[in-house]
């Protein structure tokens, strides 16, 4: 239960980030010819240079931290949840329904109910993939990808012209605006345009909850056992079937929350056109990978990715790079980070395999015998 402090676990993501930033810097100069130092100064300024920059970073970090936790929990149970997007969409749809249809809920209870509903909707969507895996042997990667599309199409039906959620009499495929009580309360306004809402607190709480769940509870214990060694878990009297479904429910719930936080915190209404461009589920995969599939790792990775996003805005605002290049550059850096973290795993597995081919034990773990 107590893990030794593993310097490598922190070093690898750190090095990946540094290398990606350096490569990005070189690319900026070689490709655009602009001053990379100026661009990076704007990036850092836009990410953490002022209270409003910090607020923007936190706002961008919240949803992807939640979807990162989603990928993390599933991964710990030995499952690869590609379905964060679909689960997030189901979550935000339900949050939207609560937000526009249940106008009568008093005060804070409205957004709390909306978020709980989102968690349950996302959770059920995730659990469905878990259920299909244990009942039918359908691989969760394939199933969750398909469920992503189903969720998008379902949302497009709800919000499309004449759909049950579309505003009556309007020609725009969108819902009516959310009830003010359903929108996430703002607790910090560093400037008039930056409204930091409770979604940030929810992400922080979710990471703490996930850490506690995985490391300290009997359920987390079972999830880890099932993920590491299903045969041993079964021998230990755990139901691999049950744990798989539960883990996918929890994973889906985190993603659903992520979807709802992004929606009720940032938007005024649900729009059909938004559904297909939601990417927070996929961003969650990058976050979980960079965070080494630990709860607080996801929190830091989410913050970092959020900082890069708001840094892109900083570059644009300062005109440090031509319009359109900033977001592309940030995309490249984020991609490189994932690539470097990923190739590290590949490298390690590769070296393991090379040693294996020549007949080696995992030497590092051998203390005795």
């Amino acid at each position: 239960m107590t893990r030794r402090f593993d310097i490598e676990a922190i070093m690898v993501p750190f090095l990946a980030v540094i290398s990606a930033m350096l490569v990005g810097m070189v690319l900026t100069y070689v490709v655009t010819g602009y001053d990379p130092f100026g661009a990076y100064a704007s990036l850092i300024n836009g990410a953490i240079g002022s209270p409003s920059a910090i607020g923007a970073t936190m706002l961008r970090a919240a949803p992807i931290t939640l979807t990162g936790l989603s990928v993390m929990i599933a991964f710990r149970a030995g499952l690869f949840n590609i379905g964060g997007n679909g689960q997030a969409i189901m979550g935000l749809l339900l949050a939207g329904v609560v937000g526009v249809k249940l106008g009568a809920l008093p005060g804070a209870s409205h957004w709390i109910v909306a978020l709980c509903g989102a968690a349950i909707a996302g959770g059920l969507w995730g659990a469905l993939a878990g259920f299909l895996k244990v009942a039918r042997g359908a691989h969760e990667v394939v199933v969750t990808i398909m469920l992503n599309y189903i969720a998008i199409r379902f949302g497009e039906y709800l919000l499309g012209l004449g759909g049950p959620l579309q505003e009556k009499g309007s020609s725009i495929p969108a819902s009516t605006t959310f009830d003010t009580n359903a929108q996430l309360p703002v607790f910090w306004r560093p400037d008039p345009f930056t409204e930091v809402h409770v979604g940030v607190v929810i992400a922080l709480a979710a990471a703490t909850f996930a850490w506690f769940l995985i490391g300290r509870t009997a359920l987390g214990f079972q999830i880890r056992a099932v993920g590491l060694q299903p045969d041993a878990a079964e021998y230990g009297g755990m139901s691999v079937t049950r744990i798989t479904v539960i883990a996918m429910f929890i994973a889906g719930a985190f993603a659903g929350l992520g979807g709802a936080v992004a929606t009720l915190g940032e938007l005024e209404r649900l729009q059909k056109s938004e559904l297909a461009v939601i990417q927070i589920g996929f961003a969650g995969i990058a976050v979980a990978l960079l965070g080494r599939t630990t709860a607080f790792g996801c929190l830091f990775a989410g913050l970092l990715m959020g900082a890069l996003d708001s840094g892109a805005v900083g570059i644009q605002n300062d005109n440090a790079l031509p319009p359109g290049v900033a977001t592309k550059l940030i995309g490249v850096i984020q991609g490189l980070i994932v690539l470097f973290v990923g190739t590290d795993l590949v490298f390690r597995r590769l070296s393991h395999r090379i040693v294996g081919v020549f007949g080696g034990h995992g030497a590092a773990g051998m203390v005795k015998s």
Partner: protein
Amino acid sequence: MQAPADDAGVRADRQNPPVDPVSSSQPILELKGISKAFGDFYANKNVDFDLRAGEIHCLVGENGAGKSTMMNMLYGLLEPTEGTISMDGKPVAIHGPRHAIDLGIGMVHQHFMLIPVFTVAENIVLADEPTQGMALDMKSGEERVRELSDRYGLRVDPTSLVRDITVGQQQRAEILKALFRKARILILDEPTAVLTPQEIDELLKVVRQLRDEGMSIIMITHKLKEVLSIADRISVLRRGEMVGTVDCEGQTEQSLARMMVGRDVLLRVDKGESIPERPVLQLRNLWVKDERKLDAVRGATFEVHAGEIVALAGIDGNGQEELVDAIAGLRKIEQGEIVLDGENITGLTPHEISEAGLGHIPQDRLRRGMVVDFDLRENAMLHDWDKPDLVRFGIIDRGACADRADMLIEMYDVRTGGGSGSRAGSLSGGNQQKMVIAREIQRDPKLLIAAQPTRGVDIGAIEFIHRRLVEERDAGTAVLLVSLEMQEVLSLADRIIVIFEGQIVAEFEGGRVDEERLGLAMVGSADAAGGVA
């Protein structure tokens, strides 16, 4: 067997002609004053060792004695803290497995390093593939594998997929891999642990033949009988230090065992008469299928009483594994019923059966018995994630878990690198097994199933485990021992039942059957079958 040109430089030193075993007095490999420290802990301390050309040199020692550490240094996986390794009289630093191979050292690990979906030949030529231009030339690869396999009597079909062949054949493929890379020194790490008795005989024959062809062989093993039958010389390690190297001539199991543990060892189990009481396990006409959906257990009926050790004897693969899995709820029961202390447990979940009073030491501790990446505290609570003394309101009481693990470690003398916080996978095999046994016995089961409890375990630990099993029996537990070792069955069992092709074919009273009759029953011979001695 020509080497590609670009690699010729590396290969030159591998193509030294085999040293003539008679004229050479200089050891082909020598370790002088080798130490390996992990922090304060010395896995090897000031070890001297030499291997002569063309000898079989057995390395014996308890689990945790430092044998694998020593071999890992030879194979370049670990670097010695002190001391020198010399080959042919010249000091060498071995940088890694690839380098070790280039130097002519081949190693066959206890757990094979083969890719299941590749053919035997593909596995063997891997990383050294024969090519024609850019293309892989598997035909000539297969040809060369076949040549080697014929020459050394290592029978295995080069075109079979590794996953389709037996463990014994996989091992032969591993040996062929070393031969293919022109090893002059072959290290075999517990090669017989995974083999059936017939396969063991065959392996020993092959090893002798390799020696006669000039190969120098280091063999690590726990089984003293094998050591005595095959070794030219024997080296004994104890707690990281070399106790001594002796000629095999004139040694006995007792003398070797004494060197290994530093005191006299009981090779026969000291136990009193059993006093069987009520039946605790009752199987009635049990049918179970294996992975291939074939009947593996066919109508097994027997009982195990409180206070007796019943051994289920049989050659590997005759349905023992499926039978044990079915009792533990890990495998579906097609027909029949199982009663545990009066309660019908047929079709219950593993959790319910374990609650009903089953303790189970599984055959495969690395797959089932423990989560290798969990620490010992977590492994100590593997069954008990819902017990109120460890988990309250779903939250694990970490102090209580640590206390339990510490207690098990203390009581069963489990040697760890870092106490109960050690990763299970970092323990040696014998200590892992002690931990599993400790956990299962401490749960105070009514029925204890011990499936090959001493497999891959050193002699000191075997004695300890046997004593514990007898103590459990004397405390009124029903013990079902599943073992492939005839010696273990004969020395421990109060009653022996023999399983052959899924059926119970014979039953003997312990102590009143000899090896020969038991052996005949195990191979399904009609002469022995049905006879209650």
